[in-house]
């Protein structure tokens, strides 16, 4: 590569990041507040669990990926390390406020981003079978009305009839007038009538909400820490699909995740103690390096969890091994833990729903194993 190669950081626009807040209580709506709050960091493109949390104790790791495996990781136990970009996360782990689930995935093995992303949010039994998302369904079951802060409404939060969203616009010379919106809403039918109608009840805010993921996380944390703040938030970060030059790209993206965790903690303040924040990605990446210093779409990966509700800092895994015969289809890290169980435990902890109900109504998998005790007690 020529000397003119610029790093992406010089030009990195954060336009790919967006924040969604959900579960804002409606004034006058009486209901017990759920016991905690839940935040999901969606990592689009397929985060490489072997880079984020290298299993350095597995002799096959360096054999398979000598060229791209991080070397200056922080050892968290005799087998697993944490990538050096995850500094904040590492210190959270040492104070028993963070855990890792490794060799895990949603049960999806076909390596398409778009099917995988649909499943990790919709949690249907097959791609594109669900029109609602697992967090939306969980909030609905917990009877928490939703309000998302975003331009669109991500699939993961759909499923709650009371869902709404807002995202302060930044359009020069524009104004909106609530009585006009009211008239417009009456001229419309269906969902759009309702959306316009809700819009007419809002004060049109002109505040500039930050748009980079770290400020969004801090903002979300602050909002969730308020007495009548939202119960859930979702932050979306892209650019994990590192088919080429993975080292620099994943280093930067992991740093963003790490700063997002720190941003949440700052924003949440005392509410950190009842919070859980988890990452979610559509799949991991191949064990072996491809020809362009990157990796291809794979299966098993790692999930990062942090929050004051975590009981013990540790890596939870049934390690499958990295030798060729232990790999899924001779190429990917095998997933030995169903990540839906992790999501279910986080819902149970934050929304106070019963595991069996979550398993059958949120994930349509009545036999989904319960992982709660590993994470929270």
């Amino acid at each position: 590569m020529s000397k003119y190669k610029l790093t992406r950081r010089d030009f990195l626009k954060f336009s790919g990041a967006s924040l969604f807040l959900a579960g804002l209580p409606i004034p006058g709506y009486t209901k017990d507040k759920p016991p905690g709050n839940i935040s999901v960091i969606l990592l689009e493109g397929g985060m490489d669990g072997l880079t984020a949390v290298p299993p350095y104790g597995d002799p096959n790791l360096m054999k398979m990926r000598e060229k791209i495996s991080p070397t200056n990781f922080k050892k968290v136990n005799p087998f697993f390390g944490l990538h050096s970009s995850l500094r904040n996360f590492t210190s959270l782990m040492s104070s028993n406020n963070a855990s890792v689930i490794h060799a895990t995935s949603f049960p999806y093995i076909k390596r398409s981003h778009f099917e995988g992303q649909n499943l990790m949010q919709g949690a249907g039994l097959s791609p594109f079978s669900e029109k609602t998302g697992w967090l939306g369904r969980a909030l609905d079951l917990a009877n928490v009305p939703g309000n998302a802060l975003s331009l669109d409404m991500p699939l993961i939060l759909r499923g709650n009839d009371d869902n709404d969203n807002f995202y302060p616009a930044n359009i020069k010379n524009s104004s909106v007038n609530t009585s006009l919106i009211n008239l417009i809403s009456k001229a419309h039918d269906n969902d759009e009538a309702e959306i316009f109608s809700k819009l007419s009840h809002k004060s049109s805010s002109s505040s500039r909400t930050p748009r980079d993921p770290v400020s969004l996380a801090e903002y979300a944390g602050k909002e969730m820490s308020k007495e009548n703040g939202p119960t859930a938030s979702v932050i979306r970060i892209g650019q994990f699909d590192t088919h080429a030059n993975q080292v620099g790209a994943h280093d930067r993206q992991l740093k963003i995740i790490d700063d997002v965790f720190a941003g949440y903690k700052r924003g949440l303040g005392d509410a950190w103690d009842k919070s859980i924040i988890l990452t979610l990605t559509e799949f991991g990446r191949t064990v072996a390096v491809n020809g362009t210093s990157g990796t291809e779409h794979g299966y098993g990966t790692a999930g990062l969890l942090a929050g004051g509700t975590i009981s013990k800092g540790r890596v939870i895994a049934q390690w499958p091994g990295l030798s060729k015969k232990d790999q899924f289809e001779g190429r990917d890290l095998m997933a030995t833990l169903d990540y839906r169980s992790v999501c279910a435990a986080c819902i149970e902890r934050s929304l106070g729903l019963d595991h069996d109900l979550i398993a059958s109504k949120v994930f349509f998998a009545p036999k989904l194993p319960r992982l709660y005790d590993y994470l929270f007690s």
Partner: protein
Amino acid sequence: MNQQFRVAQKIGLMFRPGTAIPDDIKTWAISQLHSTSPALGIESILSKVETWPQTLQPDLDERAKLFRLLQGTYLKNREIKNTKEKQAKDHQNKIKHSMIKKDELKFAHRNVYGNDQIRLRLMSFWSNHFTIGDVFMNEALIGHAMEEAILDNLNGSFSDMLYKVTTHPGMLTYLDNNYSAGEESKHNIWCKRQVDCQAGLNDNLGRELLELHTVSPMAGYSEADIKQTAKVLAGWGANQDSTIDDLKGYGTTNHWDMYKTHYAEPGNKTVMGKVIGVGKGGLRQLTDHLASNEYTIMHISEKLCQHFVSDNPQKKDIDFIANSWKRSKGDLDQIHSAVIELVINSRDDKFQWPMNWLFQVIRLSDASYFHGWGSVHSGSKNLMEVDQVFEELGQSFFSERQPNGYSSHKEEWLSGAMLERRLRFASAIHKVGRTKSSPEQIMDRIGANMTTRNLVKSAGQNSNDRFTALMCSPELMGLKSV
């Protein structure tokens, strides 16, 4: 709404005031398929509509040079200690060497001022089908691909377009094919003998070629098929930061057929049962094979139907497009004619994408809402810069995004925040866009329905409110236009 405007809303961009409205909409629409036009636009907000200057439309050779200058100058500017001075120099660098914003403005101008409205909508459809997101290294190539791989190939076969897009340097860069080398390629074998050299396959483009661009997962291909596809593709593409001499060595026609023989995988490949020959010609064999595959035809016929006709297309409508595809062996004129026929006969509503709605609002009211090309990089007090407009809309062909492109489904675009933006853009266009047609004139022209007329009437005396009400009515957003 009159039939003419209803059709123009669904598959065009609306008739600008002063343009003739055809009596026979079908004849007009079909003839539009061949109504090619240079890029029209304005130099400054008050100047007349004319053709975009050639100097702002460089060819691929020139774009490769500009990109190298852009990178080199950014690197040089890093040495500057004074932040303000560095910012000013970086800005100058962008004005002189960066193409992405110029291309985005040209795209906006074309859509606002163009008379080739159906071709422009088809360009957007196919540019979305063959998404090329901004990965910086291809910043000068996205707009070029949209015009020269898509727009210029609208009258050929799907197979031609597929091949042109797949081999476009913008796509080869976006989906990482530039560095992909066959496992048994000369380069890979050489590389293995070096210290610290790495080479081999990258399957990113191969995977999306099958999943998104042609047969889709419905076809049930295997991981081995993806790998074989990547082997066919190995060798295609050249790095944007190679020297000009290197680039010349790899291709012959203006950088578009860059093929590095020493990166190619020797031997035949087999993709979904089809044996693909060795060498540069192999890719064309593969794209031809994929283009005529039954699953490709069904996948894209459904997508066309969903985008232009109905969110929930009927089987018979999808079959109608698929049959014309099969009869004509993938002739895009025939395929597009079938889509036009469905649009004319369909009673279904089709909620318009934010960007198409914006263009339609500007065209119907004859507004000037985008900067002229003379001030593409300079903001102004009243007008937003072109990239900000699309960012606020939540939809831009020039942004970083995933290769599956934007959804055509209403539910993906219907939210409070999205609708608030429509209200605000309508209001801003009326306030600062020097609209030349009043809501009443527009309603008479399009034959607005009673709901729309009553809504505008109820909005009272304030002309900004009346304009906003009209443009955000169910009829003008495509929610109720029959």
